[in-house]
């Protein structure tokens, strides 16, 4: 009997206890609380020096530990901002400011996510086409596959600025150059996963459809494609996270006016640590949301196909 069945059968009170002792909710909560506590401790530790320096400049002789701790958490440009400072910055830039404003993180987040999603689309299509070619044409498998693997040892993010600048001088500005970087990062996991997925049908199944005199397209649509879907979604989760990274790094060159990457860069120029952390948190939340959306699509699709996943 699995844990889930036990929980379903148990009365409400012990159900809660079971969820706490067997589920991962409590441990995850514990880890998250520990991270926040460490964060506060780190904020006090790292910011203490600058507060002490300030006291010294002000000629102040006596101070209590309580005052020191309170001040380390409310500096304007802290070395490490405390979580509540980041939260209030988030509330200011996400909720208080209208969405269309340049100061709104929702606006910057949308700029980043839209180019990431465009790149994700390009990259996924390219990855699937390559995988279909590799599975069906042996020469391609032998000649192209090693280069696809080698292409990922090239630090593509490193040339992101060049791609942006070069495409910009050609007249391509805005979404497309960033999307190209995202697409380059995306296609690899999709290709690898799809090659594995499209070759995953058992030889006995392939033999069976061959005895039905199925054509290559029929084998593809009725056997290879359905069995590759689980692999496809696993790859898509990796790919969408990579697409976000690509879009953010694509915004780092100074030309970019909007986007989370541009916020990071301007924050680092002007020493606005709170702004950097807020942008990082938004990027993390958006990446997690994208991965979760792919996960939802996966569940829906596999459910409709009759899977139990």
């Amino acid at each position: 009997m699995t844990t889930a069945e036990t929980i379903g059968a148990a009365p409400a009170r012990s159900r809660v206890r079971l969820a706490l002792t067997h589920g991962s909710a409590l441990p995850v909560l514990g880890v998250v609380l520990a991270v926040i506590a460490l964060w506060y401790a780190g904020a006090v530790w790292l910011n203490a020096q600058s507060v002490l320096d300030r006291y010294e400049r002000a000629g102040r002789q006596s101070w209590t530990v309580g005052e020191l701790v309170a001040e380390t958490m409310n500096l304007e440009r802290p070395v490490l901002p405390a979580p509540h400072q980041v939260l209030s910055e988030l509330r200011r830039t996400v909720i208080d400011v209208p969405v269309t404003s340049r100061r709104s993180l929702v606006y910057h987040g949308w700029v980043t996510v839209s180019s990431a999603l465009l790149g994700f689309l390009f990259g996924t299509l390219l990855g699937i086409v390559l995988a279909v070619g590799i599975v069906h044409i042996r020469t391609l498998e032998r000649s192209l596959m090693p280069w696809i693997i080698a292409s990922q040892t090239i630090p593509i993010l490193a040339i992101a600025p060049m791609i942006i600048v070069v495409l910009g001088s050609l007249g391509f500005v805005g979404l497309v150059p960033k999307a190209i970087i995202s697409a380059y990062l995306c296609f690899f996991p999709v290709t690898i996963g799809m090659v594995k997925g499209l070759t995953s049908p058992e030889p006995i199944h392939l033999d069976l459809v061959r005895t039905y005199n199925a054509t290559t397209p029929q084998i593809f649509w009725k056997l290879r494609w359905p069995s590759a879907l689980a692999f496809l979604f696993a790859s898509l989760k990796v790919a969408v996270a990579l697409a976000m990274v690509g879009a953010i790094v694509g915004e780092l060159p100074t030309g970019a006016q909007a986007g989370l990457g541009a916020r990071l860069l301007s924050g680092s120029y002007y020493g606005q640590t709170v702004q950097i952390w807020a942008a990082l948190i938004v990027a993390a939340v958006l990446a997690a949301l994208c991965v979760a959306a792919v996960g939802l699509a996966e569940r829906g699709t596999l459910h409709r196909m009759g899977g139990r996943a």
Partner: protein
Amino acid sequence: MRPRRDGVLALALVAAIAALAVPSGWDALAAGLWLAMIALILLLLFRPMAVLATAMSALVAAILGAIALALLLAGGAHGTDAPGLWLGALTASLVVWRVLERLSTLGRGRAVSLAVPFLFGLWLICLWQLVTVGFAIPSVLLPPPSQIAWVLASSLSVLGADFVQTFIRSMIPGYVIGCGAGFLVGVLVDRVPFLQRGLLPVGNLVSALPIVGIAPIMVMWFGFDWQSKAAVVVIMTFFPMLVNTIAGLAALGRIERDLMRTYAASYRQTLLSARLPAALPFIFNALKLNSTLALIGAIVAEFFGTPIVGMGFRISASVGRMDIPLVWATITVAAVTGSAAYGAVALVERSLTFWHPSFRKAS
């Protein structure tokens, strides 16, 4: 049984003759080489040979054709004025395709599995050269490979200093510390089930986050020199290693665990002689993934401020001066470095996890 007619080579023959027929500035030497290639194609079309002989003859034909095209290019054939050049390129591509296809049927020997991708890559570089020179594409957009090679050779000292700064001083320490810490924490976490259940989802989430974004913070904390880059690399490599170590330590089967228990093996003995070896494929997976991630982290961190040396600095500075060939030369160094690091880890993996199914020959 009649041999199947070779459509690819027939098309190549038509294109080759058409290339000679249109005005493209053929001189005597180039035309002679081209005719020799056509003769070889004819031979291949009408005299069926063994697989290897076909591949080799087609390879000779492709080389003859490539030399003829290079002569044509050097003679000033250019863009849309020389349709013969592009028909010639089509011919040579078809012949190269035939070489690759024949070689692919030769089985899975080591020489073949190296030669096919090598020839394919070489041909892509030749095409790149042909297109960039033939259409006179400005080097700001895409420099030809010959120019990149020239810049690479003539600025070796600069690129060498960048390599030492980024690879030896930033990436290696960060990689070692990050992977080592991830591994040790993984082993510790494995002893505490509560932490394991709590850290694994968090670790998985963090591995999906855009961690490169912490680069500006690290530059603020640790200064412009290599320490900040190493710190970025540590954080980027830590979580993949942690997640893979935890997953790897859980990979040992129940039977093997029970066996160790019947030996009355202590935790240490079980860990060292059964669980760690079983975890090695996972750990090497993380090491390989991290070898690429680490280089990316080190280079991207340099965009946020460096001493005036390093691959990331070289790239952003050269982009600013529109010195694109130097950027490509740096990228070449980075790509070779990344591939070599990956290859080195893969070699160690092969010698340590030779027992794994993926390395055993299918029998």
